[in-house]
């Protein structure tokens, strides 16, 4: 039986991260960075890496990590979601899972030590079940001549300049240095302005394979499964902020001589958000806990997480905007940052309907046999 609670270490980690974000990443700073066109907060990221060692949390002690695990990574992501903090931690966690699968200990050690950023170079919308073969991949990259890569991968999240990229190409997984001139990253205008996306062009870029064949495919699948599972905790943190902020607002805002929060329609809508959030938290904890498990349970928990938590976060953000009335619709209020992140996150690692289709396979609820959808059932 999974432990779905937070243990004392996890609560302590949460407090530390929350305090650091409160001090250094208030939303006003994030909004100003978005306005300035350069949302990633490198200073904040260095603090998280150097002071708290977040990139080592899921790395075993023998490779220089904190040997805590993905449950702790999930707690950090909850807090980052709560603050819509513009740092590339989710991408680093996904890369960690890939490196663990490849037993790429040198890179794991450098990542844990905060010496380099590593990102899996796959479009942010890619679902785990789309990463397993070259024909399913949305942006195929070709190999050769020699150990070089050529091609274009679009919409990659958390790919910071001067970092390392893990690129699936052909039947292998390669490491490429993003600082090389043969790698061109161009920024995209992303819906979620606090999580920049880039298109990456490889022109015979030097590459080093770290896994081939099934091992490479499994590593990418494991990484994207981890992404889907961990993103759920970010979504829970985001939804919690939306609920807390809205509750505080409707308690204080008066209309018709009463606090807006005393109106039953408002109360019941927030109660529904709370119920959904309560369920999403259990689902996200389960997914984080099962990440280490063998067999189909990790895939099932991750698919469940994105089938459930993505829509919950979107609804929480939408209710936040709605119940703030006009003010929640302005650029000067942070609600739109959360709305945009929630809607983007609902696409990241595959939309909810894709994950439902994955569940259909995992729990044996197959689709109708005919393809036409017209003359299929006897009624």
């Amino acid at each position, binding site marked *: 039986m999974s432990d779905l609670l937070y243990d004392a270490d996890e609560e302590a980690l949460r407090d530390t991260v929350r305090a650091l974000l409160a001090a250094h990443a208030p939303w006003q700073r994030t909004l100003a960075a978005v306005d300035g066109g350069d949302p990633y907060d490198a200073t904040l990221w260095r603090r998280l890496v150097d002071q708290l060692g977040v990139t080592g949390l899921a790395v075993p002690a023998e490779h220089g990590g904190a040997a805590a695990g993905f449950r702790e990574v999930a707690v950090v992501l909850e807090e980052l979601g709560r603050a819509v903090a513009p740092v590339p931690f989710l991408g680093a966690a996904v890369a960690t899972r890939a490196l663990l699968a490849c037993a790429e200990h040198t890179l794991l050690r450098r990542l844990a030590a905060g010496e380099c950023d590593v990102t899996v170079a796959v479009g942010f919308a890619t679902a785990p079940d789309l990463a397993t073969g070259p024909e399913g991949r949305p942006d195929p990259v070709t190999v050769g001549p020699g150990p070089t890569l050529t091609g274009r991968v679009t919409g990659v999240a958390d790919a910071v300049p001067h970092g390392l990229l893990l690129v699936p190409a052909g039947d292998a997984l390669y490491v490429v240095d993003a600082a090389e001139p043969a790698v061109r990253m161009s920024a995209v205008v992303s819906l979620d302005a606090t999580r920049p996306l880039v298109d990456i062009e490889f022109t015979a870029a030097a590459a080093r394979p770290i896994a081939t064949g099934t091992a490479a495919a499994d590593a990418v699948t494991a990484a994207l499964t981890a992404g889907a599972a961990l993103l759920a905790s970010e979504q829970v943190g985001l939804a919690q902020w939306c609920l807390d902020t809205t509750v505080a607002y*409707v308690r204080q805002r008066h209309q018709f001589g009463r606090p807006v929060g005393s109106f039953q329609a408002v109360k019941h809508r927030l109660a529904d958000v709370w119920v959904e959030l309560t369920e999403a938290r*259990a689902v996200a904890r389960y997914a984080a806990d099962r990440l280490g498990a063998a067999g189909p349970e990790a895939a099932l928990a991750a698919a469940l997480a994105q089938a459930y938590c993505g829509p919950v976060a979107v609804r929480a953000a939408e209710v936040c905007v709605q119940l703030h009335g006009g003010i929640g619709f302005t650029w000067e209020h942070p609600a739109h940052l959360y709305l945009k992140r929630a809607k983007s996150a609902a696409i990241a690692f595959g939309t909810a309907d894709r994950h439902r289709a994955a569940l259909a396979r995992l*729990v044996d609820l197959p689709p109708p046999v005919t393809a036409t959808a017209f003359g299929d059932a006897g009624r």
Partner: protein
Amino acid sequence: MSDHTAHGLRALVAAFLDTHDPDGDRLGFLRARFDAGLAWVQHPPGRGGLGAPPQLQAVVDDAFAAAGAPDNRPRRNSIGLGMAAPTLLRHASDAQCRRWLRPLWTGEEVWCQLFSEPDAGSDLASLRTRAVPDDDDWIIDGQKVWTSLAHEARWAILLARTDPAAPKHHGITYFVCDMTAPGVQVRPLRQATGEAEFNEVFLTGVRVPDAHRVGAVGQGWQIARTTLMNERVAIGGRPLPREGGMVGVLARLWRERPELRTAGLHDEVLRAWVGAEAARLAALRLRQLIAAGEPGPEGSAVKLSFAELSQRISGLEVELRGAEGLRHDDWTMRRPTEPDLLGRTATYRYLRARGNSIEGGTSEILRSIIAERVLGLPTEPRVDR
């Protein structure tokens, strides 16, 4: 008296089994188990327990089940075990506990609940049943409704108004009423399903000894809250395996009857599965959270989800069955002790599930409870006090 660990309790059960034959006299075995403190381990010695941590109850139950010991048929006395017992344990006198708890736990005496009235549904505190003192007794007059098990019960927990002049929440007292007393009349109340799972109970000059009053006069409302919180936990709180409950019926139907499948219903079935699994994990997490504590308002969320899911899933199953969904099994009036949500037809499930968002607190009331007690939102302007 012993070490309160899983190991220690397993040893206690083993010792008990050495001296009590699980295949012998059923009631004798259960009474002895109660007296040995192995009924409700978290409660105090003398009241069926040992003062052990509540999470060890499962260890004890598993050990008895593994030995093939008889259980107390908990579903036949759900109100007694789920609502009356927690309230008595917390608010009743020692003498009252001695009289009532053991036969309640063994199932020798079934309990029911006399709270709701025709004009006091969601607004339970507006109840009008009167209790008037007369020497050492109270004389009860009034009408109660939605009483399951009334026709089988020996005892009832009863709320009655003892001070009509007091503000509505302050004039209520909590009693235990003997259902065999003169003046208690039970009539079946038939529902949309055709069954009469509930009863109307008419109380005419019923004498209740003051010794059967629970708590102080006028404190009934506070005590009833213990009962009601336990009701919500009892309704929603059973641990289920994956695909336990109605979603399992739906999933098996989908697997076994490919000719019923359509593309449009496929996604609905998947959504229902996802919703049910999320609710299941949330209920599990809640159990982990309250393992050592009191039931809190969080139980309301589980009950709310349960009602919505059971309605959605049973409605979907009726549609998925198509032509079969137009047929019912039987409209004959029956008097079941509990709804048979998994055994009968999809149409029965669909109709019975409509009651899930009404009984034990409507979904509207539960949302207000969550908004006020969990989220701290302000109450509405009150005009009734």
